[in-house]
């Protein structure tokens, strides 16, 4: 039984074509039979081939004639409403495939944008490479994500005030650093360490501490890059996010474009 993909074109080789015909004709008849039995409906099939003068039919000559008579009794419009030939049928398939393709492409684009977002978040990817349309889309995704996060924060706060409030500062997602060798190096080393991180579990204070240990590399990274300018007075260890350039301690805007 071949599981190779068959090219959708007339088989030029005579013997191959005949062999394929025999097999597929048999399979087709089986399928009609199953359809009729499973769904309790009337059906018939007629196949003319160059190999035989008489057509091959299902269920049998009488059965076919009965179904055809039933068919012809129907009003003309009903007959032709769901009637297709090769051309129209293939066109239908093309249209359907097209729609599925567009949908899949859109879905892939969203997934891809998510990857880009996470990469830009940690500086592995650079925003500088993106064109406007992509940038807009990325912005939209980030916006949506922020919304989702806020919603989740709200629901957690409602659920129970004791739950999520923890004191130890959480290691931050590493922020992209421009220029500074130190920053890049630690990023480089840490990614190896981070690969060993175990998958996290859910909301738990205990997890918190465990989480810190697991993500020790980024904690170190964070420790290595004091960003006082960004500290909004929320207390030691709690920092705002961006993206401080070592060379410009007072950035006009966050600079995280690095080659």
């Amino acid at each position, binding site marked *: 039984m071949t599981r190779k993909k068959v090219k*959708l074109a*007339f088989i030029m080789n005579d013997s191959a074509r005949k062999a*394929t*015909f025999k097999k*597929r*004709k048999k399979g*087709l008849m089986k399928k009609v039979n199953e*359809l009729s039995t*499973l*769904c*309790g*409906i009337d059906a*018939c*099939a*007629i196949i*003319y*081939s160059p190999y035989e003068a008489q057509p091959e039919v299902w269920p049998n000559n009488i059965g076919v*004639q009965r179904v*055809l008579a039933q*068919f012809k009794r129907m009003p003309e419009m009903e007959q032709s409403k*769901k*009637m*297709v*030939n*090769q*051309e129209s049928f*293939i066109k239908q398939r*093309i249209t359907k*495939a097209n729609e599925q*393709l567009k949908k*899949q*492409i859109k879905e892939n684009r969203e*997934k891809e944008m998510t990857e880009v*977002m*996470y990469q830009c*978040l940690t500086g592995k990817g650079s*925003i500088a490479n993106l064109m*406007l349309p992509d940038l*807009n889309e990325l912005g939209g995704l*980030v*916006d949506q*994500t*922020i919304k989702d996060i*806020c919603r*989740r*924060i709200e629901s*957690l*706060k409602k659920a129970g005030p004791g*739950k*999520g*409030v923890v004191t130890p500062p*959480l290691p931050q*997602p590493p922020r992209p650093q421009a220029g500074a060798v130190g920053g890049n190096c630690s990023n480089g080393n840490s990614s190896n360490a*981070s690969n060993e991180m175990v998958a*996290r579990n859910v909301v738990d204070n205990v997890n*918190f501490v465990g989480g810190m240990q697991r*993500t020790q590399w980024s904690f170190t990274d964070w420790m290595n890059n004091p960003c006082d300018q960004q500290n909004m007075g929320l207390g030691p260890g709690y920092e705002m*996010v*961006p993206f401080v350039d070592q060379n410009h301690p007072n950035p006009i805007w*966050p600079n995280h474009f690095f080659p």
Partner: protein
Amino acid sequence: MAKKPSLGRQKIKIAKIQIKNHLQVTFSKRRSGLFKKASELCTLCGVEIAIVVFSPAGKVFSFGHPKVESVIDRFLARNPNLNSTSGLHLVEAHRIASIPDLNMQLTYMLNELEAEKKRSETLDEMRKAGQSQFWWEAPIENLNLHELEQLKDSMEGLKRSVSIQANRLFAENSNAMSFFGTNNSTNGVDHYDIKPVAPMITSTSSSAAASHVHSYGYGHGLF
């Protein structure tokens, strides 16, 4: 968002299906598959076929090559030499001539679809890997309050950067445009990028911006 996995291929008994809903779904799928197989048989082996199927609701579906009626007539007349009126042959011939092309088109589409599905799987794997490696890439539901706050801050920082870069790009494009004139698109600047109004992402507005941003669809102008 994980899709609920289907039951997959299961062996079933060939007897009338008892549950009406299942029966209807089965009919729909199998009829479609049957026509597909018939179509392939025609293409591969160049044979004439007619299939007539009545639905559980009493509607009739039919597939035929070259035409349902001509095959039926041929069968009923029981004379293989008897063809439909010769005047129609030319029209038929034209129609039939387009089939190989259509098949090629279909094959192309199906290949593209398969490629995109593979890409989708790759992206899913990337997401899974990311989720297990970095806490901030885990699904939002898995994060605790503190982590959420941190992530939110990071995201807002990213949003600011994106908006700044977007404004910067837009300004560059505008400058280029005013220098070369609006009709000139040969300076490498894509009109598509310039045309839309200034990028709406700003650090100040959040919810208002989101709805605007999405209107600049990055259309895959494929079809």
